[in-house]
């Protein structure tokens, strides 16, 4: 029973595995990811997530909103080198 619960939690963690490696927040997530790293299913999921996140970074920010951010932030956005936190 306990084993089943552990497996279920590990599956749940993997579904929420971060797109960027630097967001491997805690030990349990790092352990779950390291156990699944070689599985085809997880590799597909990660490549899927990275492609979606890359497309999200390209969603245009209206100029009236962009002007609230510094030019540097917006330029880095366009380069895809820095993440953002708008609400659109």
């Amino acid at each position: 029973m306990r084993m089943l619960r552990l497996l279920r939690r590990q599956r749940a963690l993997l579904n929420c595995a971060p797109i960027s490696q630097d967001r491997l927040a805690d030990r349990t997530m790092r352990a779950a990811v390291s156990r699944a790293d070689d599985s085809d299913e997880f590799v597909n999921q990660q490549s899927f997530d990275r492609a979606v996140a890359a497309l999200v970074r390209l969603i245009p920010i209206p100029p009236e909103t962009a002007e609230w951010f510094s030019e540097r932030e917006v330029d880095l956005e366009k380069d895809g080198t820095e993440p953002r936190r708008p609400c659109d």
Partner: protein
Amino acid sequence: MLGDSSKAQEVFHTTLREAANRAAQGELPKESFWLFRDARWRCLEATKTDLQPEALKLDEHDVTPQAAAQIEQLKPTQLAVWISGAPDPQRTALALFYLDEFDYNEILDLAELKLSELSRFLARGRRQLQAWLDAKHPEQGTV
């Protein structure tokens, strides 16, 4: 979250204006992410009177190795509209996750979800998006 840049802009400006007012009165909350939580509720409020997505059972497909190539064929706005068409809280989960700005604990806190719920929303979202991609670009789905 909204799939509509003018609404998003309105929410963004209202949220900032309200934050500035609270700061001026020395009433900024101490909790982290309150600004994002506030923006999220304003987004949900802004769509309350819109047509709501029907509770349809969408097709779901397993994520394939070709998915990344299929996603590259999409326009960013198509993806934004797809995500904004998901029912909440799945919409919030997908929007926060794919912003790639928060770790899962932060998303759980922001969206007020349990791990099992976030996991289910993301897994289902991937499978639904894959089915949509397969329908849009069937020639790439089985390569």
